[in-house]
């Protein structure tokens, strides 16, 4: 049962981390323009993916 005294606070701590992450996403305006953000991912010139993935995608593209 003693393990409980470690695990219970630990689980709450983990959840608090999640809450802090959520707080950050709200503060940085990630819910302000859902339509725009959904569309932005389709734009080629603002692709934020790592360079390696972009190169591979470029090679794989037949057209």
């Amino acid at each position, binding site marked *: 049962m003693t393990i409980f005294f470690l695990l219970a606070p630990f689980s709450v701590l983990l*959840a608090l981390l999640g*809450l802090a992450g*959520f*707080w950050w996403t709200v503060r940085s305006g990630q819910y*302000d*323009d859902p339509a*725009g953000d959904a*569309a932005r991912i389709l734009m080629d010139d603002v692709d934020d993916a790592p360079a390696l993935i972009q190169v591979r995608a470029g090679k794989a593209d037949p057209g």
Partner: protein
Amino acid sequence: MALTYDAAPDYSAFLKPAKDGGATFDLLVKGARCAACMAKIEGGIAGLPGVRSARLNLTSGKLSVDFEGRSGDPGRVMSTLEKLGYDSAPYDPGQAAAAQDREGRRLTMALGVAAFGAGNAMMFSVPIWAGLFGQELGPAALIMMQWASGLIATPCALYAGMPFFQSAWRSLRVGRANMDVPISIGVILTLAISFAETLLHGRDTYFDAAISLLFLLLIGRWLDHKLRSRARGAAADLLAMQAPAATVLSADGAQHRRPLADIVVGDLILVRPGERLPVDARVEAGASELDNALLTGESRPVPVGVGELCRAGALNLSGMLTLRAQARSDDSAVAAIARLVEAGAQSKSRYVRLADRAAAIYVPVVHTAAALTFVLGWGLGLGPREALLRAVAVLIITCPCALGLAVPAVQVAASARLFRKQVLVKSGAALERLAEVTHVVFDKTGVLTLGRPTLIDPIPEAVALAAPLARASSHPLARALAAQDGGTALAEEVVETAGQGVEGLIHGLRARLGRAAFVGVEGATGSETELWFAFEGDTKIRFQFADSLRPDARETIEALRARGLSVEILSGDLPGAVRSVAEALDVRQWRAGMTPGDKAAWVKSLATVGHRSLMVGDGLNDTAALATAHAAMAPGTALDASQNAADLVFSGEGLSAVVTAIDVARAARRRALENFGFSALYNLIAAPAAMLGLINPFVAALAMSGSSLVVTLNALRMHRAGR
């Protein structure tokens, strides 16, 4: 008539200096609704010299442009947008809707905190519930679980409950009890009693119930906010757009764009064809025709020349006008209408929403029941502590989860459904009011009719002859004529005389298109709804135009009658024009020659004889009536001010959107009432059970989430409504 934009006006009055030495320019872009638009706009604007970045918010349609220095050129941004095919208007720096946005973030955060609190408090509650079923959990472990649950749930509930506490406090201060009052009392009392029970080593604590109740209610609150903010993004931001701008000529002839409020009497204003007059003004130079349709409802263009006084809000049709301002924007004719609108909007804000009406019954009943439980329980020998626990159980189990979620969920589903049908709903209250409508009042010009002239009985050969000349003109009648012909040939050496007509060479032959006198017809009436065309010295051909009915106007009116609604036409136009439309549509109640004030007064008088009227209008002359009516709709082609005054805005050619909107609103009302009925039934069972002490925290958690689920599922049935 070519529009010249070579001397781009100066918009620097709209630049907002930023802290880092740069400047920001915010504008609203109309019609940017897809990913491709966003890429095109951002790419185009960011490429301009001096622009650091451009970001378009696709949800609200706002474009924010950052300039490197203070001396950026906002005019370039606007002309670039125009070249890309988008209308735009600068935001009045004072009117940014930042406060509203903050409220949205606050609700999102509260929802997140409530979710965290509910999940983690529940984690400690499950072992307690296990204990209720005779599983082993020592007394020490039980107390620890209760403390852990309480320490997590309480701070979260206090934070997440703030929107409710604040609203309850505001409502109590004006002596009314809205739905947030029982919610706040319930949550605070539950937390307090649960803490007392924990201290006294009692069995039942309701920490998890309090926080999950808030979580469920916040979903409803959040949905309601989303509904309103989406409508704001698309339509209500137009209010901020109203501010824009007029072109003022300075002494050296330079053009400056100024916010409307900065225009003073005596300023020289330039109004291009296609623009509206910003203030009441007298013509200094130029001649043109003005379209007063949105101001008075009159469908005929009025010719104006030097020395004539023109009203703010009139649309300049054909020639460039230079005018001298005669009044400030606040004193112009438009502002008088704006004051009528304000008065109407105030009467609308007194409307009591469905949920609040339910609360008016619900609050006294539930609180009496809880008080009775305590008094009777104690009196019948339960002991004060047990009696208080049962009273709290009554408050928790009957807490209006279902009610708080029922209405917003239905309204979000309904407005999503209407959104796909190209009808924009501005608020949930608008849907509730629309469902109660018994009488529909239509404006004529631009609503029942298309609001633009079309050729009557076109003879293809004649049209083909005149079309090359018509295509060269920007006059509405000429454009209507050109629209009838499929060709692309263009006349040469075209000269347009404002307010008279166009002259040019067609296949080397000199020809004229315009007013009777201009073409050389003698003894004609000079009517504004006809055009004459002739080759030099040849026979003269007459084209007649009329404002045509919307294609589905008749069906719409029949459909409205079939739904038990009476129909009426109110117009500012001449009696003859109104009568012909009324007869074509078989509408017996109609009134012509109404001023904006008349319309509003008539709509108001309808209310006194027991009619709840829906006003459908598009013009500035309708805005006061739109604001006064029980519910209001405006077409997407309407003036911004009208779209602001209306509850719903529909786009597309058809009027049938009015019928669809009423159907969906009625279906939404039915669903909401069903949900209320279900909640009442649920409370009829749950409240007595709580009074008898049959409820424990586990049953409370199940009942609450179960009832919320049922009302939400019922709300989702809205997706089939109005088909």
